[in-house]
């Protein structure tokens, strides 16, 4: 099956081209093309995954996209190809699955939008880019698709370009990612310069020999900048909440389940690079951990349903990054997988709600449970999974992460992780109690969405429930394999349950839910009073620690200011110098001209003076 792996990204590309070239005017046809081609990719991805499970051998195929020769020797080769190993196979499945579901969902969600075909074209293009990234066998190709993914994100966030906020947000997303990609690009060029290759396999053969060297430290950190941008790690996180200006299914697909996971995926893919230098790993772990906590705290006070989910995503991505950083690729990827399901579910659910309520402020919702039961209950399942409640998917993956954190002696991070688990449960159920249950808070006419929208929700809900099981000891006993034996770095682990850790994290999650219940459902404690009490902290959180403002200030005052200074130099100094020279020469001419007085005798005088001067010179 592996030889058809190139088809996985190609099918969405074909869909994109077909939509652009042929079916742009036929909206429904565009949607059908996009969805069915994506479904094709999904089927392929499933079959490849099955094959990988049976025979987890890595296959790699590539063509030389571009070679540069100097002196009859090849000095640079840029490859395009695919590398199918368990990691790629899993990721392919996630991407194609979520994409297909989101496409299906979007048919209902985007109905009547002017840019319907454009939307499906963009998503197809995105799917193509993401899959190209996933199956890539070298850093160059990864970078190419990395950028294309960024482009699609830009296009989709700015899908409603007429909304100034959307236009701003898309620009912000692209530029923030650019800053990060700058590091990534320098990093891979550095890798090439030092090791002479972009290819993952070739690099992993040589990188291992340079453990803990300074050059690897620098390159590792540079390359890591890329994942930081895509996965919105602090301090590159600012774009992700704003990205919620895009249509909600996009948020589900790109900004929750797949694209932001690309950073995690890349760290896993190039794990040998990061794992070779201890300090890089520590940096990754702490950045992940910090982002997890940082985002979770912000999520506590947000009012916009999508922003809460966005900060939650940030937090969870930090979680995954932390897992990778402490040294467990498996747990990071496992959380990525489960998170993809329930976060997509949550976003699609949120989309369904927004579709119904036409508002995104949770305080304008309420009492939805009766109007749209499927949406609400699947949303609750997703939230439970996210909070890590036994036995849903989130429980297993979060538990795994906390376990490895402790195992690798990152006690601080473990405590932090547990705290985040508490906060996660709290803000999710704050959302649920305010938005879905309780009284109707505004004059909305919510109703259940159509089947194309609810079907994906149901599928994702089921997956959110069961997906975690693939890394349980029971599953291992049953099938003889598990997620962590399928997908691993260096040596496979056998899944075990550490009941103490699991208990602790469950306690934290339940605690979070309980507190949320007390405050928002029972209203024993007034949220407003709390906010009043901790006014400083509340304002700080509500304003996201003022980081956007800081960046805005740096941009407006710093960069624009610098631009003005340079512009001044250009216009006043350089132009002044050159124009001034011209003026000087000209005015010299105008002055000299006055010597020509028109008086014959002065002319004669000049002549004789010159002769006299020359004579004096000559006789000397």
């Amino acid at each position: 099956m592996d030889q058809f792996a190139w088809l996985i990204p190609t099918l969405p590309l074909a869909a994109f081209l077909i939509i652009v070239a042929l079916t742009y005017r036929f909206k429904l046809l565009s949607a059908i093309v996009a969805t069915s081609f994506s479904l094709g990719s999904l089927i392929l991805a499933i079959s490849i995954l099955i094959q990988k499970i049976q025979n987890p051998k890595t296959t790699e195929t590539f063509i030389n996209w571009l070679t540069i020769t100097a002196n009859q020797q090849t000095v640079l080769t840029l490859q395009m190809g695919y590398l199918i190993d368990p990691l790629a196979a899993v990721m392919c499945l996630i991407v194609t699955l979520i994409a297909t579901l989101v496409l299906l969902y979007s048919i209902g969600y985007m109905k009547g939008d002017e840019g319907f075909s454009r939307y499906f074209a963009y998503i197809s293009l995105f799917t193509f880019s993401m899959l190209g990234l996933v199956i890539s066998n070298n850093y160059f190709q990864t970078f190419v698709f990395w950028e294309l993914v960024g482009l699609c994100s830009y296009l989709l966030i700015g899908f409603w370009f007429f909304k100034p906020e959307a236009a701003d947000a898309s620009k912000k997303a692209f530029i923030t990612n650019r800053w990060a990609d700058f590091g990534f690009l320098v990093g891979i060029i550095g890798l090439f310069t030092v090791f002479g290759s972009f290819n993952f396999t070739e690099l992993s053969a040589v990188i291992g020999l340079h453990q803990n060297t300074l050059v690897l430290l620098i390159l590792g950190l540079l390359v890591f900048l890329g994942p930081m941008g895509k996965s919105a790690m602090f301090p590159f996180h600012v774009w992700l909440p704003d990205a919620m200006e895009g249509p909600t299914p996009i948020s589900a697909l790109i900004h929750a389940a797949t694209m932001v996971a690309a950073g995690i995926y890349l760290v896993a893919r190039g794990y040998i690079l990061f794992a070779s230098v201890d300090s890089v790993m520590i940096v990754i772990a702490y950045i992940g951990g910090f982002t997890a906590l940082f985002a979770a705290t912000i999520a506590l006070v947000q009012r916009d349903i999508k922003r809460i989910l966005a900060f939650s995503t940030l937090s969870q991505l930090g979680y995954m990054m932390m897992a990778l950083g402490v040294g467990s690729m498996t747990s990071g990827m496992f959380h990525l997988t489960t998170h993809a399901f329930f976060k997509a579910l949550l976003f699609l659910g949120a989309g369904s709600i927004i579709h119904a309520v036409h508002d995104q402020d949770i305080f304008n919702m309420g009492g939805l449970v009766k109007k749209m039961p499927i949406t609400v209950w699947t949303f609750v399942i997703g939230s439970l999974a996210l909070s890590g409640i036994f036995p849903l998917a989130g429980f297993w993956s979060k538990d795994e992460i906390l376990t490895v954190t402790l195992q690798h002696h990152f006690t601080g991070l473990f405590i932090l992780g547990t705290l985040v688990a508490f906060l996660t449960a709290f803000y999710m159920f704050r959302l649920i109690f305010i938005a879905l249950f309780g009284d109707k808070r505004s004059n909305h006419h919510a109703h259940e969405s159509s089947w194309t929208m609810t079907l994906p929700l149901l599928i994702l809900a089921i997956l959110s429930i069961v997906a975690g099981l693939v890394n349980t000891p029971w599953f291992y006993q049953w099938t003889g394999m598990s997620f962590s034996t399928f997908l691993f770095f260096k040596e496979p682990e056998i899944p075990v349950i550490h009941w103490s850790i699991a208990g602790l994290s469950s306690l934290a999650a339940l605690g979070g839910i309980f507190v949320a219940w007390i405050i928002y459902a029972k209203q024993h404690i007034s949220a407003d009073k709390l906010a009043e009490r901790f006014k400083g902290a509340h304002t700080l959180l509500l304003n996201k620690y003022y980081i956007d403002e800081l960046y805005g200030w740096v941009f407006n005052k710093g960069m624009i200011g610098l631009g003005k200074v340079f512009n001044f130099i250009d216009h006043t100094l350089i132009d002044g110098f050159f124009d001034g020279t011209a003026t000087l020469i000209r005015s010299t001419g105008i002055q000299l001209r006055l010597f020509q007085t028109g008086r014959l005798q002065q002319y004669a005088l000049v002549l004789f003076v010159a002769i006299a001067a020359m004579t004096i010179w000559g006789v000397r």
Partner: protein
Amino acid sequence: MNISVVSLELAALSIGFLIIIFGLIFPSFRSSKTGGYLAIIGLLSMLIGSFFLPASNTQTFINAFYVQDDLALFFKQLFILAAIFINAMSLHYLKPYTKNKGDYFALTFFALTGMMVMASAAEFITLYIGLELMTFTFVLLTAYKKQDLKSGEAGLKYILLSAISSGVLLYGLSLLYGLTGKLDFAGISSVFSLGATSPLVVWAIIMLLSGLGFKIALVPFHMWTPDVYEGAPTPITAFLAVGSKAAGFIAFIRVFFHVFSVYTSIFMPLLITLTVLTLLIGNLIALAQTHLKRFLAYSSIAHAGYILLGVIAYSKLGLSAILFYLMLYLFANIGAFAGVTALVINTGHDRIADLTGLWKRSPFLSVIFLISLLSLAGIPPTAGFIGKFYLFTEAIHQGYLWLAALALGMSLVAIYYYLMVLRTLLSGTNEETKSFIIPFSLRLVMIVSAGMTLVIGIWPGPFTDIALRIAQSFL
């Protein structure tokens, strides 16, 4: 006695007299353009004839006081060519100024004769006679527009200043005679080659330098140039700019390459100083001009500076570069002055500002200006570039990199002012939208000169070959 040596001079004189005599016999002839046509036909036949003259080896006349070598013949052909252009330009130009055209055409022949005598003179008396013949005729021609205040003033300035400079020149010559007892070039240089530097030699050199420098408008002996150029009838200005200047150069070349060849260490520093001054003053003042002919006068001063680089290089290639440059300078300048003539014929003015909107009124004239001025500025593909390249390269070759760099820098200033002129003619609109009437003869002059400017620029090979051959035969 080898009459063929003086055949061109004789032809010129006789045609000149013929025109005068015709004018005396037939009064109507004096006021018609027939004299002009006769002049042009005569000049053309002279030009064609000149190519059949035996000139490959040096021909002499009267004890080698008068030579007809390749160099002389080359210059004579140049003069004749210039005269053809001048007469063709004058045909229509003269109409508003005088009824008396016949004499005018005759006078150009006498000026031509003077130049040709200068080109062939191998002795100072002959040189002096040629020089004065040329000068006096030019004075007459300059003052020809009797009703024009400027014309008379220019004539007076020209005659008085050139008489003063002749006085200086002659004083130098008398010293030279006193030092050597001879007045022929070969004799003097053979005496000099025996050695013995006296302070009087320095003095003589200085005086000759100023006397001849006056003719080629070397700064600071250039002061007459802008005034006379402005006052003179435009075709005569052109003749002064190309003919008189080239004649000055042939005398300059003969004197400094031949007579004073042992005293390079004395005159070279002077010459370099004057060249630097010429380059600076000529170019800088040209920048500030508002009057087209004055502007071209300063430009021609500056060009004397460039050509002097070839003299300073003091080599075979340097000479060859001078000859080549004079050739292309002729065409470019004639083109520009023909343009001015057309402007004067149509508008009656010749300020730079009068060019405004020319682009719309006469694209043809604009293109002529464009080509000619670009050539003067030394921009490819016009001939001026190759000429400057040749001169500067040779100057660098002989170790004058700084001088070449200065000249190049001044060329940039020059480009600036040429562009300012072009800018005027490209921009704006004139209220007067009537399109230009350019007489056929003038049009022909423009086409030929601009065409040659381009031809030499695009295919310079044959022309550099000629220049090199002549330079080789001379040195």
